[in-house]
């Protein structure tokens, strides 16, 4: 049996699939989010050094991970769209970018809320904070470039080039804590060694990470459906499926 790998590469067949997938990600996002917040606020023990303030990591860490990861995915889809000239890939990249920007903003915001009680300052010009801020600027630049060009195909390609140029920044953010000796502490979670935090904290954080994943996927799917609808508004199949 051969699989047609490209079946869902066309907007026409992806549109209904995306519609069916949205609830499958939206519901887990809500449920896991509630469980994660419950563990974070009521189950996880108080930290011996940071007190109650550390609880913001249940939002901060997943948001920061997603902000970097979504940028990689945006660049991946943008590059795919540039290389194979597939419309849907570029639409995926556009659909993900606002969520990525939101995650970056949330990571910066919660980080500063956390920094106030523990470091005693809202903001420091530390390598990781600075590079995360640059990531936010890159998202904004990507979205404004895409919005400034009227021809959608040209907008796809031009913003794809920018997304690929900006990829350089992601490893810099990720390794900034190791390369420069900074105020921001190193990662407490890694695959290769035992995590340096209590098990309930870890579980709470992982649950939140999955919630953020599910949320991002669901929102991106909703947005890509809207993009398809906007760009294919004159096609016959869309009129049929939507019954206009």
């Amino acid at each position: 049996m051969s699989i047609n790998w490209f079946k869902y590469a066309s907007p026409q067949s992806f549109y209904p699939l995306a519609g069916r997938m949205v609830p499958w990600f939206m519901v887990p996002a809500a449920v896991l989010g509630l469980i994660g917040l419950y563990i974070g606020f009521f189950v996880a023990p108080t930290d011996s050094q940071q007190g109650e303030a550390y609880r913001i990591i249940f939002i901060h860490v997943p948001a920061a991970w997603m902000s970097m990861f979504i940028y990689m995915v945006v660049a991946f889809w943008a590059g795919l769209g540039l290389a194979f000239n597939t419309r849907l890939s570029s639409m995926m990249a556009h659909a993900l970018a606002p969520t990525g920007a939101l995650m970056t903003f949330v990571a910066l915001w919660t980080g500063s809320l956390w920094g106030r009680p523990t470091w005693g300052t809202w903001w420091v010009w530390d390598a990781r904070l600075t590079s995360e801020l640059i990531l936010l600027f890159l998202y904004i630049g990507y979205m404004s470039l895409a919005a400034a060009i009227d021809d959608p195909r040209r907008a796809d390609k031009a913003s794809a080039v920018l997304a690929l140029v900006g990829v350089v920044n992601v490893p810099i953010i990720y390794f900034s804590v190791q390369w420069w000796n900074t105020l921001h502490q190193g990662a407490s979670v890694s695959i290769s060694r035992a995590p340096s935090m209590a098990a309930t904290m870890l579980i709470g954080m992982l649950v939140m990470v999955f919630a953020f994943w599910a949320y991002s996927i669901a929102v991106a799917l909703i947005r890509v459906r809207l993009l398809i609808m906007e760009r294919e508004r004159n096609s016959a199949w869309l009129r049929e499926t939507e019954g206009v």
Partner: protein
Amino acid sequence: MARDLLIALRHRSDVLTTFFFFVIVVSLYPLGVGPERETLREIAPGVIWVAALLAAMLSLARMFGTDYADGTLEQLALTPQPLVVLVIAKVAAHWLTTGLPLVLVAPVLGLQFDLPADSLATLSWSLLIGTPVLSLLGSVGASLTLGVRGGAALTSLLVLPLYVPVLIFGAGAVAATVTGSGAHGHLTVLGAMLMIALVFAPWASAAALRISLE
């Protein structure tokens, strides 16, 4: 490239505007901050580097803009030479008309800020290595925003975040000399950035130009 240089020579005012923009911005700081020598020496590297960034950005629109407007760029793209070569020529012309004058005048401006002699040397070196990176990265931004509405503001939005690493290490090199910890490491990183930008930026700009010319 010879043609670009010739045009730049004929339009001397364009080049001089960028040059004096740089000089004036740098000179504004002592007036705004106050003439205390200690403070000036501390802020000098950052001020001169930020001014260089802005000056390089100010002239980016000219890199491809006029050629795009009158159709020359399309003709150049049709010539048998690869587009990458064209981009490298354009970048080199841009650097010779904006980057190099900044490098030459920077030591004089450094004197205004009471920088010691060894810091002045580091300042020139860091600018000499750093300004080509600015021209290279700028070419990507300039070619992406060709013919886009609100192009100039958009270019700064795209290019300035990419300039940040150059700024950090360029100003860092001078600051390290002032404090006496040695600038060698910073300059090496700047050189590495130049090498990477030299390999990838013309290629990315050429891809962006092809998209703009479609």
